[in-house]
């Protein structure tokens, strides 16, 4: 044991221990950083910078590929979300449109409590020459029958010409086959609104059988009279735009602009039933 304490190795170890203690005490009493730690930092820092530079380069290289895969997946995910949002947007606008139509239906029901309505969507439109018809998405299964009046909150549209189980065809008021018994709202004068080959191209119809001395002015509102009990009374048909004499000179006729733009219809109401009022 004595030999150990006298050996050079022990003395060397003791010297190192004393040195280490000296460093500890110096570090304890001196402000940080000490000259020794500064020196170590000077030795180490350049190597650290080099390693970090290499590491960042290698990491960046592999991150490019990983980043590309991640970007591809993210891109796919975002496209799916865009499609989802586009669908939601379409549903939103459809809901707004339906809400608006339902609001009109509610107002109409309130205004015309004598009428029983069925709300329908226009699924196809045919306007070839003098034929002006469209198809709706309701039929006999929904209580619709041939001859039923079709309208919107703005006014008269037409009538049901044929009805299947889940669809029906509507002849519009500008169709050449249409004849509607009407009244001039202002004077309560009875007139007949009918389709005309020439006028139907412009979306207008003709008011016939007007006496030469009849009290009719441009701007007069024309409504259904309910005569014949085919259609309810009081539904706006259109406005007088022009008054002209017939070729034979005995009577005159007027050109009516419908209150409804039949070429922009998306939703209509079919009057399934109505109360006949005097």
């Amino acid at each position, binding site marked *: 044991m004595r030999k150990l304490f006298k050996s050079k*190795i022990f003395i*060397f*170890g003791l010297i*190192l*221990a004393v*040195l*280490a*203690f*000296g*460093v*500890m*005490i*110096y*570090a*304890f009493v001196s402000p940080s950083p*000490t000259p*020794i*730690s500064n020196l*170590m*930092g000077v*030795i*180490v820092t350049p*190597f*650290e910078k080099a*390693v*970090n530079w*290499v*590491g*960042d380069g290698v*990491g960046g290289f592999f991150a490019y590929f990983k980043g590309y895969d991640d970007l591809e997946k993210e891109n796919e995910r975002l496209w799916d979300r865009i499609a989802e949002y586009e669908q939601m947007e379409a549903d939103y606008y459809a809901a707004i449109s339906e809400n608006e139509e339902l609001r009109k239906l509610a107002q109409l029901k309130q205004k015309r409590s004598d009428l029983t309505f069925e709300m329908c969507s226009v699924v196809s439109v045919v306007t070839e020459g003098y034929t002006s018809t469209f198809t709706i998405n309701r039929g006999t299964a929904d209580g619709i029958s041939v001859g039923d009046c079709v309208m919107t909150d703005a006014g008269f549209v037409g009538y049901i010409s044929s009805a299947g189980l889940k669809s029906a065809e509507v002849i519009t008021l500008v169709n050449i086959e249409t004849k509607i018994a009407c009244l001039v709202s202002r004077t309560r004068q009875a007139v007949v609104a009918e389709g005309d080959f020439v006028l139907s191209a412009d979306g207008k119809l003709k008011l016939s059988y007007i006496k030469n001395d009849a009290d009719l002015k441009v701007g007069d509102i024309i409504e259904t009279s309910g005569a014949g009990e085919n259609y309810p009374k009081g539904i706006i048909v259109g406005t007088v735009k022009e008054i002209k004499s017939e070729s034979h000179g005995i009577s005159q006729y007027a050109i009516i602009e419908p209150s409804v733009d039949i070429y922009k219809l998306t939703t209509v109401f079919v009057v399934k039933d109505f109360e006949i009022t005097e």
Partner: protein
Amino acid sequence: MHKQKTGVLIKCLVYGALAVVLLVLQSSRATGVSLWTASANFMPFLVAALALYENPYMAGGVGFFAGLLLSVHSSTIEGLASFWLAIFGVAYSYLAELFFRNNIVLSILGGMGCLAVGELCKYVFYYMLVHGVGFGAGMLTLLGSLILSVPFGILVCYIVRWISRKFSEDER
């Protein structure tokens, strides 16, 4: 004689540079890793390998220098790691000269032992007594340190053995 002294000087520089490289690898932003709040420490393996393949003076001296390097990025007081690694290097080398054969397994085990004891002391005298850290968390940190340090530490032992043998061949 002069050539021998030059050889020893070069060896010291080589082992010193190796210590710097090991410190940079274990603590730089690009290569440093952590596990359960523990980080890698390759210096005990360096000192243990030097203790077996070189001599107590080399092991003690490089251990002292490695301890100073460790304090660069550590909150531990300067000199403490130097004290521990230097004493371990001298003592382990002395015991190796008396009882062991130079053996890679013993150098690895020596490194693991040095690391474990050092971490245990750090836990007991600092984390447990000062901060009241629980035994479980402390042992988890010790385990993390071993897991991170041992794989590369084994490589360090092999590197030291290679350097030592290279210089021995050159001397012959």
